[in-house]
Each structure stands twice: as structure tokens, then as C-alpha cells.
């Protein structure tokens, strides 16, 4: 455990050097998205969604979506670079760390970044007065789940590809469809059956639904358990796969 924490500490020291470049994005993105989609698009959506004003309705989805974006951002190029360009993982493998420590420490740092981004968004949303329930802070736990459910398999992917152009493919063919068809901007009921499966299968929709319940104060019921189970399944499978891929790269 201390070994994993020492790896997390390494990433945090690194973040202390580079946080300024990402801080602006973390803060300004939510503001822009709130203004653009919520206030701008929202003005055309009369009556909101199911009686909830459009801005208030999309904020939970946007927070889950922010977790997705942060997870993908941290799990693609940084991981690829630590294998291919900077070779930082190989330096760590020469120390008395296990593969699980190296991977776990980095994932822990990613979760920190993901929750941080979600928390900033939540704070901005609170300032806009769009939170309806005292359950709202629970969205950070959901962000954590979505974050790991996305980050872990993405790490496995980034550890497997031979060129960073494969990371762009992931962005276009996995992240973008997931962002569009996961009930962030409109209910998935308006999607054709086939596209609805994008929502069911990938992690984001489950997180969006849970976030929405938390922020609007509605009960997810038993379906909530299904959402959590799906996210946990992605987390577990992703971590397992990432460990296999890391092992193959670091112990040869």
C-alpha cells in the first residue's frame, strides 16, 4: 500500500509542476458548457425535460461527462508517453515496486484529477443554482465510478497500442459516440433502438442516470443498483486488463 502511495505521490509532485496548464481548462470548460448548452440551447427547449428546466436537466449529465473527459485525458497520452516517450514506468519498474503499485498509483492519481474536475463543475453548477437536492454531492462518487470505469480500460488500451494515432481513433470511435448517445443532452428514449445500446453497454449513461437522480433528488430505485453494477463491472474488467497489459510491457 505504501508502495502504491509513493507512486501516487510521484504523480502529485508532477501535477504540482503542471497544474497551471490544466487549471484553466478545468474551470473555464464548465462555465462555457453551462453558458453554451444550458443558457443558449436551453432557451430553445421550452418546458424543459420532464418538467425540469433544460439547464438543470443537463448539468448532472455534464458532470458525468466531465468525469469521462478527464478520465480519457489522463489515461491516454500520459500513459502512452510513460511507456514510449518518457519511459517513466520502466524507471519505476526498476525500483522495488510491483506492477500493481505502478498501475494502481497512476490510477489513483487519475481518480484524483477526475474527482477534482467533477467537483469544480459541481461548484459552478451550484453557483448557477441548478442543484435540486442535498444528495448532489453524491455525484462525486458517481464521477469516481465513471472515471475508473473509463480510465482503467483506456489505460489498458494506451498500454497496448504502438502509435499514438490509435489514441485519436479511440477518441473518435468510442469517446465521441459515448458522449453523444448517453443521455447527457437528451433522453436516450429519443434514440433508435440500435444506438440506445451504445448507452446500455458503455459506462457513461449509467453514470449520467445516477448523477441525475442525485442532483434532481429522484430515486433511482432498483435500476440504480444495475447502474452501479455495470460501472463496477467496467472498473473490474478494466483494472484486470490494464494489469495484464502493464505486466506484458514491464516484465519481459
Amino acid at each position: 500500500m505504501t508502495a502504491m502511495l509513493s507512486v501516487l505521490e510521484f504523480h502529485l509532485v508532477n501535477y504540482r509542476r503542471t497544474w497551471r496548464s490544466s487549471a484553466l481548462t478545468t474551470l473555464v470548460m464548465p462555465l462555457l458548457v453551462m453558458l453554451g448548452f444550458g443558457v443558449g440551447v436551453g432557451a430553445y427547449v421550452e418546458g424543459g425535460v420532464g418538467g425540469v428546466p433544460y439547464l438543470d436537466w443537463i448539468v448532472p449529465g455534464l458532470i458525468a461527462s466531465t468525469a469521462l473527459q478527464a478520465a480519457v485525458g489522463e489515461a491516454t497520452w500520459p500513459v502512452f508517453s510513460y511507456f514510449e516517450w518518457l519511459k517513466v514506468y520502466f524507471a519505476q519498474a526498476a525500483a522495488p515496486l510491483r506492477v500493481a503499485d505502478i498501475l494502481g498509483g497512476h490510477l489513483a492519481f487519475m481518480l484524483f484529477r477526475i474527482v477534482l474536475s467533477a467537483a469544480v463543475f459541481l461548484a459552478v453548477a451550484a453557483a448557477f443554482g441548478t442543484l435540486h437536492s442535498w444528495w448532489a454531492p453524491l455525484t462525486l462518487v458517481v464521477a469516481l465510478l465513471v472515471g475508473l470505469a473509463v480510465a482503467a480500460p483506456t489505460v489498458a488500451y494506451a498500454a497496448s497500442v504502438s502509435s499514438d494515432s490509435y489514441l485519436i481513433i479511440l477518441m473518435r470511435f468510442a469517446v465521441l459516440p459515448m458522449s453523444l448517445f448517453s443521455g447527457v443532452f437528451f433522453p436516450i428514449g429519443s434514440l433508435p433502438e440500435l444506438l440506445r445500446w451504445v448507452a446500455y453497454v458503455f459506462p457513461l449513461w449509467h453514470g449520467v442516470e445516477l448523477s441525475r437522480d442525485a442532483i434532481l433528488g429522484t430515486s433511482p430505485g432498483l435500476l440504480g443498483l444495475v447502474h452501479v453494477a455495470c460501472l463496477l463491472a467496467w472498473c473490474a474488467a478494466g483494472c484486470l486488463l490494464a494489469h495484464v497489459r502493464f505486466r506484458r510491457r514491464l516484465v519481459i
Partner: protein
Amino acid sequence: MEPHPTAPPAAQNPTEDFLIHARGLVKRFGDFTAVDGIDVDVRRGEAFGFLGPNGAGKSSTMRMIGCVSPPTSGVLEILGLDPRRDGPRIRARLGVCPQLDNLDIELTARENLTTYARFFGIGRREARRRADELLEFVQLAERADSKVEPLSGGMKRRLTIARAMVNQPEVVLLDEPTTGLDPQARHLVWERLFRLKQQGVTLVLTTHYMDEAEQLCDRLVVMDGGRIVAEGSPRELIERYSTREVVELRFNADDQRAYAEKLDGIGERLEVLPDRVLLYVDDGDEATAEVHRRSLSPASVLARRSSLEDVFLHLTGRTLVD
């Protein structure tokens, strides 16, 4: 015949005195055999070298010793432990300076050392103390707070060596420690490594620079095609595989081979290269006099002491390996 009454006690337990002990060590990657059954023993406090052309299996061997690459077969013991089982415990007592620097370029020189020290469970205060001490040692104290990215190749290499020392290792593994450095930087690295050796640190290094091996190594093995082809001290190897001196003759002719016959019988061995002829002899001056006695007039004559390079090329051939 009497048994040896004076056999050293260490012989009864051969692994005790050796920090690294390998027998029939093999590493295969699929069909390719990188290391093909080598025996190696490294004693405490010595500087041991793996010499060989590219692809000889040096780096694969080093990675097995560094416990990041499990052996395919054979015996390997490091510090008396089994790397297959005790990887982290062994790595806690090793220092590794890889062939390519893998420093974190976003961090400062000091942070590179302190964060790395934390991987060994070293406390923050102690990590900082050691970092400052090591930065002093590798003459980077005044760059402690500058980022790694703009540092020169030599500085980065010294910082990597400092990082390898942060856990006060018993053995330091150096994979081509001075490849790609300019002469001043190389000499500085050598000098620091020599100081480490004097402090009692066991050094294991790979190199294809003969001067490096002669400067640093007490003992070395020459590897070629995954096997060990020679073993001994630099001096022993020169004596065994070369002569005391070498005379290099250049003739003003397109084909140096024409002169080989006329030089026949001078020295122990003769080698014809595209641009010169090498005579392996005991006495360079005497051999040079003999060349002139035979009324040959080479454009240039160089009599020099035999070096490890002669041994190396003799053993591994002159064919270019890429």
C-alpha cells in the same frame, strides 16, 4: 595426487561470496535466443563488465539481473535471493542506470531523486538529504532546482546515476553508461563511477567502448551471439588473445593484401584490413626494424600497446553488427 589442502573455504559454498551468480542462464524471446546459457559470478566490491557488440545479449542479461525480466531457464541468484520470487526485495538493494535516460523531464533534478527515493520507502526528510548529497556527488548541486529537460546529455546521465544511488545500493547496474556522451562528459562519469567503486559499491556495466572497460572493469566477459566467448581481467584478456604490442602499417597501395606475403613471419599474427595491415608482435620497435630490413616502406607506421579493442575485434570479428 593429493587433494588441494589450500582450497579457499568459499569454494564450499560458491554462492555466498558472489553478489551475482548465474549458471546456464538463458533468455528467449519467442524463437530468438538473446542469452544462450551463460555462467557469471560477480564478487562484492568489484567492477564487472559485459563487453560485446550490439545484439550480443548484454542488455538482456542486465535486465535479468535487474529483476525486470524473468530468466527462461538456468540458475540466477542475486544477493543470495531468487529473482523469480524476491524481485522487489532484490530491487530494493540494486541501483539501475538504464541505457536510455528515463528521468521525468517535467520535474526538477532534486524532485527526480526525492520522488524516486520514496519508491524505496525512504522518508521525505531523508530523501531530501540524500538527494542533496548525491547532487553534490554528481556535480549538479547548482542545478538542483532546474527542470531536467534543458540539462545536457552528460548532466542527465549523471543525474540518472545519482538516482540509481538513492537507495544506497550494494550493486549498481549501468547499461552503457557513457554511450552518446562527449569526451569531457564521459571522463566525468568515469571519474564518479571510480569513486563509487572506491567506496565499495559493486559495479556491473555493459559497454562496447574498450577504453571504458579498461578504465573501469576489474573483470569482464566478452559476449557474442548470446554466449560468453572470453572472461578475465582486461590485462589477462589482452595477454591471452592478443600480443603485447601491435604495429599498424599503411602502404600506398589500393590493395594492402599484396604486402601480407612480404610481411610473413613477423610477429605472431598478421591481419589485413582494407586500409592497413596489423602485426601482432611482442616488440613493436623490433618488428618495425624488421619491416624496414625487408626494404618495405609503408607510408605510416604506428607501434602501440595492444588494447582490449584488439581482443574484442579478434573475438567478435570485424563484421558490422547493426
